[in-house]
């Protein structure tokens, strides 16, 4: 019975890994490729580690596999964020069908300065798009 469960976990994890690889080779853009590979690859590896837990059924192995799952779940989004940030700053071209690029308005590639949109709140009158109620509240 436990073999069937382990087989299901292993096969679904490997299928998710294959899905990540297909996504990384088929998608048109750095960010979409990263979207395919990071989430799907991490989930596939986590499912295979759950299969390892069930196959061994020892506390030491369970702890190690759980440590691997937690480590991958924590580090994979961080690494993806850092690479996507570096790729955008380097100037990787986005896909032609990209509808919205919100970072483009607030990022200055010359000075490498990223505005948060809240500049001028303290030094008076810099931004004129502040609404009235906020002015009266101050």
């Amino acid at each position, binding site marked *: 019975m436990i*073999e069937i469960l*382990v*087989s299901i976990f*292993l*096969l679904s*994890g*490997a*299928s998710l*890994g*294959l899905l*990540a*690889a*297909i996504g*990384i*080779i088929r998608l048109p853009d*750095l960010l979409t*490729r*990263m979207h395919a*590979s*990071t989430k799907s*690859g*991490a989930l*596939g*590896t986590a499912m*295979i*580690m759950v*299969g*390892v837990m069930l*196959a*061994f059924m*020892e506390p*030491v*192995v369970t702890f*190690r*596999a759980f*440590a*691997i799952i937690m*480590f*991958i779940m924590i*580090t*994979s989004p*961080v*690494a*993806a964020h*850092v*690479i*996507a*940030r*570096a*790729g955008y*700053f*380097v100037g*990787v071209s986005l896909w032609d069908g990209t509808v919205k690029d919100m970072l483009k308005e607030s990022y200055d590639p010359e000075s490498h300065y990223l505005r948060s949109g809240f500049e001028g709140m303290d030094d008076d009158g810099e931004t004129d798009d502040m609404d009235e109620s906020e002015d009266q509240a101050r």
Partner: protein
Amino acid sequence: MINPLVINLVYLLLSLSVLLSFIRLAKGPSLPDRVVALELIATMVVAIIGVHAIDTGVASFLDIAIVLALTAFLAAIGFARFLERGGPRDD
């Protein structure tokens, strides 16, 4: 014991995914693409190590998987810092 057919099929699927991401690593148009492909390869190798631990019944392989995941994370961070500092790129 797990059915050997299942183990071999899982090996096949994971090796195919490593192969596909290696194609992206070889022909990726820019350096961040290659870094993403490298990260996926490292994740898939961690999965292959897990399957190999089940296959052989040696649980000590999981330690290697932990170390490999750590190294891959540090490599990704290092590549990103290198890109942001503006190192030489060969796109």
